[in-house]
């Protein structure tokens, strides 16, 4: 009885957040979903979805968006995983420096960071000057407006969201477990794949979910790095609202993107629960 009453008492603390999210987030979202399912006053209607899935142009963009998001997630994981270990094992000033280096760029803003990358990638940019100065390339290599540039820039910008959840798990990892594995005859490689990887997987899944859901819906970064040449879902949504004035197509695509993001979040939290099941 007391336990139930206690939960009730604390539940009131969630009221501001519930009101805030309910009025300013859930209601517009419901309106958006409603709009995606109505054509010229008739409800329900799947014309918007039919329009999207009936056009290869749209499907190509969806596929490209998913591919870029996966590549961004993969690249940032590759860079973040070892970084998280360095961060977790570092002490004192070194750890503070790495943490600040991780968190400070978040305060700079996506637009500024993306512009910085576009300056690097330009044909007369720093990277090309270096390549030509070193004699690796004879003429400027086209980097800006390519998918590779997009993946590199986005992975860099989202990196903290991959490092921090992995770091949180690595910090909890008892170094004795790796020692125990070694004394039981496990080579460092065996210990890594049988002990370290399974125990840090919840952090990897959380970080991947963060980065993937941000990468799948990113708008500013592809706009500035690849422009109209190679669109992503978010750019297409903006286009259908702002230029095509096709609110139904825009809201349908928004709903599709939302479903993907929700599936990733639910799927990953289910995965974390299963992975973490044995270790309460």
């Amino acid at each position, binding site marked *: 009885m007391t336990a139930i009453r206690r939960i009730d008492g604390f539940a009131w603390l969630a009221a501001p957040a519930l009101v805030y999210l309910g009025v300013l987030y859930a209601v517009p979202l419901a309106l958006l979903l409603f709009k995606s399912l109505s054509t010229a006053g008739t409800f329900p209607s799947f014309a918007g979805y039919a329009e999207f899935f009936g056009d290869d142009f749209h499907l190509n963009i969806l596929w490209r968006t998913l591919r870029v998001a996966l590549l961004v997630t993969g690249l940032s994981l590759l860079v973040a995983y070892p970084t998280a270990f360095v961060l977790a094992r570092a002490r004192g000033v070194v750890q503070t420096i790495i943490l600040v280096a991780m968190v400070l760029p978040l305060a700079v803003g996506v637009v500024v960071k993306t512009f910085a990358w576009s300056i690097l990638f330009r044909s007369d940019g720093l990277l090309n000057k270096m390549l030509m100065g070193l004699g690796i390339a004879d003429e400027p290599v086209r980097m800006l407006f390519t998918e590779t540039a997009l993946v590199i820039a986005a992975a860099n910008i989202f990196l903290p969201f991959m490092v921090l959840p992995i770091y949180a798990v690595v910090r909890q990892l*008892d170094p*004795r*477990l790796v*020692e*125990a*594995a*070694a*004394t*039981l*005859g*496990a*080579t*460092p490689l*065996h*210990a890594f794949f*049988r*002990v370290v990887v*399974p*125990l840090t997987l919840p952090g990897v899944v959380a970080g991947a979910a963060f980065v993937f859901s941000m990468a799948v819906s990113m708008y500013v970064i592809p706009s500035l790095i690849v422009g109209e040449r190679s669109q992503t879902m978010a750019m297409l949504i903006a286009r259908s609202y702002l230029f095509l004035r096709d609110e139904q197509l825009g809201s349908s695509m928004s709903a599709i993107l939302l479903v993907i993001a929700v599936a990733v979040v639910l799927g990953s939290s289910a995965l974390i629960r299963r*992975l973490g099941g*044995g*270790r*309460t």
Partner: protein
Amino acid sequence: MAHLQVSGVVKRFGKQTVVDGLDFAVERGELVSLLGPSGCGKTTLLRMIAGLVHADEGGIALAGRELASVPSHRRNVSVVFQSYALFPHLSVRENVAFGLRARGVIASEAAARVDDVLALVRMQAFADGAVTQLSGGQQQRVAVARALVVQPDLLLLDEPFSALDRKLRETMQIELKSLLKARGMTAVFVTHDQDEALTVSDRIAVMNAGRIEQFTDPGTLYAKPATAFALDFVGLSTRLTGQVTQFESGRITVATATGELRANASFTRGSKVLLGVRPERIRIGAGGTEDNTLQVAITDVVPLGARTHLYARAADGDRLLCELPGTADMTETRPGDMVTLHWPMSDTLVYPATV
């Protein structure tokens, strides 16, 4: 050559020398304890033997093989960690099988060996359970099973009982000792708990400040501590300081603030010495000519069940401890009583006084 031979090992962390030119040898099938206060270097020594820490100087050899260039995973030395370090993502059975899988033992043989060792520690019923659901005692059994199943040349145990409550601890100590003895296992325990060391070991190495003070069987360690540190660290004792006034045919007379005491030892006149005596050697009443005798005031009577401790204070303030068999009401002594205490001169231990 001994089964485990540690020679001249030195380990420094920064400017601090943690293990200071230590020699140590364990015979095959022996159960040995490294006993000492925290910071004495015992855990560092254990970690060096396991290959988890590299020695700065000296050599470690196991079964005739020099270990300096052998990594942990090829030493065939198992460790039971203080925290047990069970793999939280694996079941009991998978934890125990870990070492066999790492060594590439085929699945069917591994399964049979895991079952055997789980039966040995009476954990078959929990084989498929999660290790995180087990009690401390059960976790310890799994940790021991996991370490034994790979048939190590040497088993190292780092404070293996410290996480268990007192009653369970004693049961587990006896159980583990007979299990290791039955298997002919060579094992080194690290502990700061003298009762644990006395219970589980054939021999005890008392460690202090990175060195071994004394390495002998539990009986000798208690009866004849080699150093003042060993006297203080193992068991209870009464300690009195004084100056040698007379030395004659292997016998010294020492002037303490409490009175004149005699002991069998060789010290030159004028040396400052520390005298020690075990509390159960001290008896109430006037002794004979071969006894040391002191007049004291009883300050406290502490009933400990089957034994009773008397705390006494001599004229100048030296405190003495006397242990009597039997319950408190069997001794007719009360706080404030003036009594005469005596003990055999041959039971008086003598050490050079430090400072």
